């Protein structure tokens, strides 16, 4: 065991650092990049696009992508190294993750040559930002239950319906949408995948106000929106295959993404500076037990990531342990935030930036973390995935198997 880079990795890291030193400012100790909350601000979008273009010009954008699309054909471990190093510098929020992390890889696998030539490079440069139109009001965990329809009309398809939880719809140029094209087929078999211009007539975007007061997500309504057939990704009624590629990349990128916000050191500091029973909370044994539990869980997760990186470093596919990241990480962050707010006593009820302890960062995290446990696969879906794909347990018994989609029971609301 050895936590050092291999000689090749060390050379690569030095190369990365040299470029970053010349092109960005290093974060000071204790300084953090802003989270994704400010990402709808036009200034932030512009800064993000400028930074992305700078990286693309130097060959440091989407480095694992093939050279022919502007990447550098880097290995997975090189990508880990790049992310570690970039994270040490002042950078604008990364608003390109959905396109570059999920949709780009989908187009590269399932798209036509023409689509690859048209879309991949502007996506890599950040010149065109992408969103994902998957979930619907009655199709979340059961995504294949989606009802937004696409009907063929000459060279076009006409889309009607509603999508929800679409990140960044208000500033995106393109979206990728899964639609129902054959309601008479079984639910997975009548789905078709399209690229849609978000400025098309008939698209209405309404931001969703979340419990933390921000609006990173949107509802997107489609009324007779026309999409040319050349924007279809994959065969007609075979869109589920492409959707699975996207989802696989999604879980990977959510688990791997740095969540930002306060961390264990900040929690320790809080426990030292708040009082309980007339002495620092840190001296209370129940508080200490909880601190230790959270620390050990966090470290367990970090060392599990090291195991995954080891596999990547050897050019192997990571083992099943890599699937636990989001299932452990999201509830852990929620628990940390809840505990931190508790430590603050009555002041924990404040979220006022001037008055709340630590400018209310823990309260923000408390309000933000429930979403982490739902996005990109709920805790419950992730347990199903671990149970079925990792542990080899039998799949759910499905009452909609073999039924035409239009005959699948939907409950009283959708009737």
């Amino acid at each position, binding site marked *: 065991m050895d936590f050092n880079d291999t000689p090749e990795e060390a050379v690569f890291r030095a190369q990365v650092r040299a470029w970053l030193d010349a092109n960005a400012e290093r974060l000071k100790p204790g300084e953090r990049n802003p989270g994704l909350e400010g990402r709808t601000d036009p200034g932030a979008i512009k800064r993000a696009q400028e930074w992305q273009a700078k990286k693309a010009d130097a060959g440091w954008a989407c480095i694992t992508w093939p050279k022919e699309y502007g990447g550098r054909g880097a290995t997975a471990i090189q990508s880990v190294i790049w992310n570690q190093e970039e994270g040490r510098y002042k950078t604008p929020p990364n608003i390109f993750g959905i396109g570059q992390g999920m949709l780009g890889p989908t187009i590269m696998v399932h798209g036509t040559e023409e689509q690859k030539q048209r879309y991949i490079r502007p996506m890599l440069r950040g010149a065109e930002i992408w969103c994902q139109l998957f979930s619907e009001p009655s199709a979340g965990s059961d995504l294949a239950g989606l009802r937004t329809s696409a009907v063929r009309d000459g060279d076009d398809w006409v889309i009607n319906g509603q999508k929800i939880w679409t990140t960044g719809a208000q500033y995106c140029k393109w979206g990728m949408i899964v639609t129902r094209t054959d309601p008479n087929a079984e639910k997975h078999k009548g789905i078709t995948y399209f690229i849609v211009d978000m400025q098309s007539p008939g698209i209405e975007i309404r931001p969703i106000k979340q419990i933390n007061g921000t609006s990173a997500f949107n509802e997107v309504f489609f009324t007779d929106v026309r999409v040319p057939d050349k924007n279809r990704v994959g065969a007609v009624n075979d869109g589920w295959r492409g959707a699975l590629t996207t989802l696989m990349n999604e879980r990977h990128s959510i688990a791997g993404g740095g969540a930002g916000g306060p961390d264990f050191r900040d929690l320790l500091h809080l426990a030292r500076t708040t009082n309980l029973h007339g002495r620092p909370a840190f001296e209370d044994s129940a508080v200490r037990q909880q601190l230790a539990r959270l620390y050990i869980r966090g470290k*367990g997760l970090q060392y599990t990531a090291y195991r995954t990186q*080891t596999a990547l470093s050897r050019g192997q596919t990571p083992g099943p342990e890599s699937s636990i990241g989001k299932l452990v990480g999201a509830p852990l962050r929620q628990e940390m935030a809840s505990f931190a707010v508790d430590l603050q006593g009555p002041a924990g009820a404040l979220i006022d930036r001037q008055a709340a302890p630590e400018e209310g960062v823990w309260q923000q995290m408390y309000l933000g973390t429930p979403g982490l446990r739902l996005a990109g696969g709920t805790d419950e879906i992730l347990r199903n995935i671990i149970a079925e794909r990792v542990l080899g347990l039998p799949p759910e018994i499905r009452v909609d198997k073999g039924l035409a989609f239009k005959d699948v029971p939907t409950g009283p609301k959708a009737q």
Partner: protein
Amino acid sequence: MNFDFSDDQKLLRKTAHDFLSEHAPLSLCRAVLESDAPYSDTLWKSVAELGWLGTAIPEEYGGAGFGHLELAAIAEEIGHALAPIPFASSVYFATEAILLAGSPAQKQAYLPQLAAGARIGTFAHTEQAGEADLGSITAAFTNGTLTGIKWPVADGDTAHCAVVTARQGADTVLALVDLSARGVTRKPLRSIDPSRSLAELRFDATPAELLGDAASGAATVQKIMDRAAVLLAFEQLGGATRAFEITREYCLSRYAFGRPIASFQAIKHRLADLYVEIELARSNAYYGAWALSTDSPELPVAACGARASASDAFALASQEMIQLHGGVGYTWEFDCHLFYRRAKYLGALLGSAHQWREQLVQRLAAEEQ
């Protein structure tokens, strides 16, 4: 980044796995549990012949000259097999203590015999219920003799020698004692896991020698505990993994309501959660093994994480094992109780997870100063 065992270490582990699958089935653990035998002598001799007892002992003292990563790999398999032998007492405690603090003469006198399995060693520390803190030790070392009572001592009924914590004036010291010497009385105590034995040891002016010097005694005790914590974590991890494997198989083969119970989400999610806890424990144990094998200053913190994580994971696995087996899981006939007992035995041996979590916070606080 290389946070994994090497191919050679994995091969060693597989060899251990294959050997124990054949020679230490659960029926062997059960046989010891149901008999008066303190351990399986046959398995002990085989393990000695395979050289496992001397894994981390240098060749000059009759060992294999490997490191602690190799020992951790074997420990996991010992745990996986619920091997009914005094491996932990003799290897993680007595051998490690002598390696850590012994003089060349002491090493020469003890290590070759421990490596060969001709002698069994143990560590005698606690004297009362509750946490065994250094301040509460009353056993006394004076003028080359030891007087006091230690209980429970793992394998105290059969061990040939013991490393014993004692007071010498104001200092905490470690005494090395030959248990066949005069003034030693052993009283076997019933263990919650009768496949692993416990005893009371009384010393009455028993001849003993110091292990290490008096000034560093307290620090040495802590080092012994930290090293053993990491190695025991691997045993616990092995036990938890085995409990999980058996439970998974059972849930796949047991039908209720016309389908395997492993197809119900209520069961699948519990198995998924258990898998997650074991993987987290594994990662923490790996980190502990790295810290141990490199003698890293991170060892004190890493050992706490490895130990608490593994204790909790094995406890949970053994509880879930009975619960998911249903009624048969509560019968003597099924093997679930072997795991339930071993989990508590190993969890108690070096102090509870609560104790190690408290230790962790103290050490994190010290690091910050």
